[in-house]
């Protein structure tokens, strides 16, 4: 199903014309209204008039998360608060929070875009949608909430936590679609297994997951343990929140809503644009945002773009499932490692949880890699021999699949401590 056929299936030529028009008017507005951009453009001696075609965008400066922090709280708004009807922000655990604002039109577009996401994932007006993202300053819950209401589905705004209650509601209210992070879906599946609840006894049939990178192996386990069809969706809270891109039924990449965003791929080290089809960091420019437009925003997410036609009929470019964040890529002895690869390996090993941490270090000039993995309780108190077996199994797979030897350390359940709500998947101690 397609929510907005006119835009999602627009011929390429028309998409590009629309992007050019919207890019020019966005740049005209940010140059006039946002002093950060005016200063930056003036320094580089470029002006919005230098956009003659889409290929001229690469001459404009990149915007990074640090820029948003420095303009805390409202420095990068293109309109005054008078015109803003909603404010969201990051938690600010790792630095000053980043604050974003939405006008009435921005909210209207946001609902339209998340309605596209939900429709692509199979949600219709007949569905009962349980949203387990946290309702609050974060964008996830409200974004998808409004899209689901726009479609006409019945929305259960559960917010996070209380797994037993989530399952009870799911059973009693006959939830058909689950909106959550993939790791929470996994947790729900395991909880039901422990409680002896047969997933087939539920009404659940769809899962729409986002908020963090997840592997195909994880998708398989979620689909089996919850007996659902699971699709991935992608958002960036500074750019809009959920609604930037979503998987269709083909599950072969996520369609980016190109009538609202221009995607580019750059090399995260050199910051140079990469040729089509290359793997690199995703950079997004907003085309319709009024309150908080962003020009060439570095998402830090690593992916690839494909302009090949999709079997679903949408013409909009597809981004590969995000492999990881550019901050999370480890390069060790010339080998690039993504946390998602490690995760895929762990999914195949019995007894371990997909909670892990990669620690790179330099000992006497030599780079070393340690993988800390949580194991479940039964295993943790089991025989040493079984534990050893598991470590050996993981070490062997790492060597075979990634080509790297790592020391595997099995740790007690829930002993890896999260920072900012998530466990840092990569710790690189070589940098000091």
């Amino acid at each position: 199903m397609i929510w907005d056929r006119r835009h999602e299936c627009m011929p390429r030529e028309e998409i590009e014309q629309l992007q050019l028009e919207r890019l020019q008017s966005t740049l005209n507005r940010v140059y006039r209204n946002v002093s950060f951009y005016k200063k930056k453009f003036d320094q580089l001696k470029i002006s919005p008039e230098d956009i003659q075609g889409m290929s001229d965008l690469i001459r404009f400066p990149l915007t990074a998360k640090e820029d948003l922090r420095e303009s805390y709280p409202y420095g990068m708004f293109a309109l005054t608060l008078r015109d803003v009807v909603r404010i969201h922000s990051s938690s600010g655990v790792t630095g000053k929070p980043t604050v974003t604002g939405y006008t009435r039109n921005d909210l209207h577009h946001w609902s339209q875009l998340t309605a596209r996401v939900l429709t692509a994932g199979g949600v219709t007006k007949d569905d009962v949608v349980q949203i387990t993202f946290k309702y609050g300053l974060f964008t996830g819950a409200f974004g998808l909430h409004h899209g689901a209401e726009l479609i006409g589905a019945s929305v259960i705004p559960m917010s996070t936590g209380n797994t037993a209650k989530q399952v009870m509601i799911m059973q009693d209210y006959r939830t058909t679609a689950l909106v959550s992070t993939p790791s929470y879906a996994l947790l729900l599946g395991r909880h039901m297994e422990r409680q002896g609840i047969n997933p087939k006894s539920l009404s659940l049939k769809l899962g729409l997951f986002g908020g963090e990178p997840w592997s195909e192996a994880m998708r398989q386990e979620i689909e089996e343990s919850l007996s659902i069809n699971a699709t991935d969706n992608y958002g960036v809270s500074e750019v809009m929140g959920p609604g930037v891109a979503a998987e269709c039924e083909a599950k072969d990449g996520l369609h980016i809503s190109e009538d609202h965003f221009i995607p580019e791929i750059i090399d995260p080290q050199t910051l140079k644009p990469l040729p089509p089809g290359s793997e690199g960091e995703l950079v997004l420019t907003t085309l319709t945002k009024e309150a908080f437009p962003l020009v060439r925003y570095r998402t830090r997410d690593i992916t690839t773009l494909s302009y090949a036609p999709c079997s679903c009929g949408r013409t909009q470019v597809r981004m590969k499932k995000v492999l990881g964040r550019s901050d999370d890529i480890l390069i060790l002895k010339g080998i690039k490692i993504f946390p998602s690869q490690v995760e895929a390996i762990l999914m195949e090993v019995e007894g371990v949880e997909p909670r892990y941490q990669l620690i790179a270090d330099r000992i006497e000039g030599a780079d070393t890699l340690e993988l800390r993995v949580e194991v479940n309780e039964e295993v943790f108190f089991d025989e040493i021999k079984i534990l050893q077996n598991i470590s050996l199994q993981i070490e062997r797979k790492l060597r075979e699949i990634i080509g790297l030897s790592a020391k595997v350390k099995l740790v007690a359940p829930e002993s890896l401590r999260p920072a900012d709500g998530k466990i840092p998947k990569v710790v690189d101690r070589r940098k000091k």
Partner: protein
Amino acid sequence: MLRLESVSASHGSIQALRNVSLHVSAGEIVTLLGGNGSGKTTLMRVISGIHPSSKGRLIFGGQNIAGIPAEQVLRLGVGQVPEGRQIFAPLSVLDNLLLGAYVRFKGSEKKEVWKDLEGVFGLFPVLKERERQRAGTLSGGEQQMVAIGRTLMSRPKLLLLDEPSMGLAPRVVGDIFRAIRTLPGRGTTILLVEQNAKAALRIAERGYVMETGRIILEGETEDLLNNREVQRAYLGKEYREIWE
């Protein structure tokens, strides 16, 4: 139908259009809003070939029309109703209308011209009542109808309307805009330049907002109506800075 890619133009040393891109699809009514001197009229004149563009591409029906003389652009199907009507005051209403079809008087088409004339009278019945009257003696609203009717007689695929509401009473504006709204159904696509944003947004599907030769906003009518900048600048909604 019409596509502009990064079009610039100047009046002497003054740059009147800066990098303007826009499009109008067949069957649409698209409006172009902006204050005095924002470049709207220049843009219309560039499209119809009366004013030269200095940069960019103008595609009409798949063909680049930048640099093509105005009469040829007219033959391709772009008709412009000029700002201030510019009708021929001493001539009758009928003669004014027939003049609009002069590019088509080639024997075989004559019958068609009379049929189109009936179409114009159907659109503006008051003109039928006054067909023998001198155009200069008509009211402002009727003169505007003559100007629109005259351009329609050239059977344009795309009709460029420059400020059709100028100097007219609200009731007459309503009559004229109701007639304009029916044109896409009769096979004419509309690009409408207006200062009367309220009236224009009532009939358009999409719009662009111009400021000092640049397009600063683009969107569907609903988005423009909800945009606070448009509300303040063109719809007369009150506004005070929050920081004050």
